[in-house]
């Protein structure tokens, strides 16, 4: 594989600059000392006033943040359960010859497709669909409706991630476990789940981000009293460019950056420890190094 030419580096740098341009603007102006309405256009000295404004309960970001976190945590927890079990159940299905068997298999495939549908269709459709369904069921719009809706679109992320991992797992391992005396339940708890755990975790992280990030669906199913953070941001940003939003954005960026950097370091650390062990036992070179991102 030939190395990149210098132009490649230039190109990538340019794209990255473009990618970060709006972000930089936001971050820059969050430190603006200008207290007035032109705070996003005229820089007047360094100040943390907007960060202070964030913490002021009057600006009203505390409750939406809490709501978003709660919803995300509950949704991810429930989705992790549903999605992981779903992946375990559906990853390998025997070919069935009987009529009943084939119908059953068809039903399972259909069910699988429906479960994965949320990430393939525009969110607005799902938002409306959930909204009208919840109304029909008479479910109050608030935390409950939010969690129920978020679970619907978080499940696919976890399901697909875990299924992918299980599919690449050697099915012989489960057979060996049964051969050695493990009941089907024991096989799940001692072999399948432990091996699937990394995928469950990364799926959960992904689902968590998607939930915290979600605007469209939350917009349609949140209640009069409960707002998630993205919805609150939307209403602020729709009419103007309030500078405290800059501060909020910067904070969120820093948090995301820390989380991603942390998980990358974990990956690296694991790799490094593995390398050290390999060198000790003389197995270096038999390992394929792949730096996986989450």
């Amino acid at each position, binding site marked *: 594989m030939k190395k990149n030419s210098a132009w490649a580096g230039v190109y990538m740098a340019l794209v990255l600059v473009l990618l970060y341009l709006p972000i930089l603007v936001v971050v820059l102006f969050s430190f603006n000392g200008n207290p007035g309405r032109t705070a996003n256009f005229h820089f007047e000295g360094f100040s943390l006033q907007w960060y202070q404004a964030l913490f002021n309960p009057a600006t009203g970001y505390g409750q939406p943040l809490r709501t978003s976190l709660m919803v995300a945590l509950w949704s991810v927890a429930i989705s992790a359960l549903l999605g992981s079990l779903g992946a375990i159940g559906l990853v390998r299905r025997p*070919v069935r*010859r009987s009529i009943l068997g084939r119908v059953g298999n068809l039903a399972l495939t259909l069910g699988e497709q429906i479960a994965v549908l949320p990430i393939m269709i525009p969110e607005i459709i799902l938002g409306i669909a959930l909204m009208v369904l919840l109304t029909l069921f008479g479910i109050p719009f608030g935390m409950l409706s939010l969690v129920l809706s978020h679970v619907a679109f978080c499940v696919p992320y976890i399901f697909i991630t875990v299924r992918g991992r299980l599919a690449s797992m*050697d099915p*012989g*391992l489960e*057979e*060996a*476990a*049964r*051969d*050695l*005396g*493990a*009941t089907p339940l*024991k096989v799940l708890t*001692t*072999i399948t789940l*432990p*091996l699937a755990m990394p995928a469950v975790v990364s799926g959960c992280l992904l689902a968590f981000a998607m939930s915290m990030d979600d605007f469209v669906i939350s917009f349609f199913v949140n209640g009069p009293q409960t707002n998630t953070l993205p919805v609150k941001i939307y209403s602020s940003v729709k009419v103007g460019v309030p500078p405290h939003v800059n501060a909020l954005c910067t904070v969120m960026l820093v948090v995301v950056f820390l989380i991603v950097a942390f998980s990358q370091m974990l990956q690296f650390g694991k790799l490094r420890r593995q390398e050290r*062990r*390999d060198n000790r*036992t003389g*197995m270096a070179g038999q*390992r394929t190094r792949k730096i996986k991102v989450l």
Partner: protein
Amino acid sequence: MPQNKVLLSLRGLRKTFDTQEAVSGLDLDVYEGEFITLLGPSGCGKTTTLRIIAGLEMPTAGRVFLDGEDITRLAPEKREVNTVFQNYALFPHMNVWKNIAYGLRMRGASRAEIDEKVPQMLEMVQLEGFGRRLPSQLSGGQRQRVAIARSLILSPKLLLLDEPLGALDLQLRRQMQQELKRMQRQLGITFIYITHDQEEAMTMSDRIALMRDGRFVQLDTPKGLYEQPRTAFAASFIGETNLISATASAVKDDEVLLDISGFEVPCACEDWITPGEQLLISLRAERLRLASQPVNMPCRVTGELLESQYAGSERTSLVRLPDGQVLHVRSATEGEQVPGEGSQVCVWWQQTTGVIVRDDREENQ
């Protein structure tokens, strides 16, 4: 020596995958304490048979009896049968100790029992001190030994081994063959072994079940298989043999006079033969002798020496008979007299060398 008690019985075992019949009616009795090998080319159904015995596969028809008990529908975890898989299937998230202890854990063995038995096992497979290692840190041979220890620790009635030495290099394989044989003798556990390597089967087994297309071709001791193959397939699968067409010219009690390319050669035969019948005779290359002058032996033919190659310990020669058939001859090189290529040579053998075999070369499922 295998005792006469039957440990495992297969009756009419049949397994169909989609439209393919992997196993077509197997009947087998395995004796307690014996080392029996299922031998055959890939796709002959040996692995499927093993899996059915282990309980990992349900037969389409037929039964499996262990110690007289019908275990055909019994779940794998309830059978006193353990398997050593081809790719070892070591649990990657557990270290060697935990892998070996797994079966005992599943049985609910006490901590004390585990702490006692695992080190014994490690010692038996010569992996003391490896307890903490992960499978990814082991070499192929070491992994294989862990796989064996993992199964043997449970003292199964029957141990199934699915081509366990396939991934090892030649020297290691020879070493492991000896170790496995030693372990089997020492522990007295019945082994059912699978391989496609006939040499491996010959050296290790008490009996060999030669399989092809889901059926048993011949069930015999290694010596029996080598010296008295019953079909052309059996004869050519083990070692190197010549399959020569001949016509029966005369029939006596348990002997047949064959017309091989114009030469009259006697051959032992117990089957019913009609004179004039076309037969196939198996002649092992290493049991044939070459002579530059005609030899006064009952079993001899003459032909043209096509080529002759010297390979240190032996010489391989090709002799063409008058009717065009070619004989491979393997002869010792010590004190040899080498006839020139193109000259007429005589090939002779002991009468017991020739075996009449059923021609099943064209047979398919």
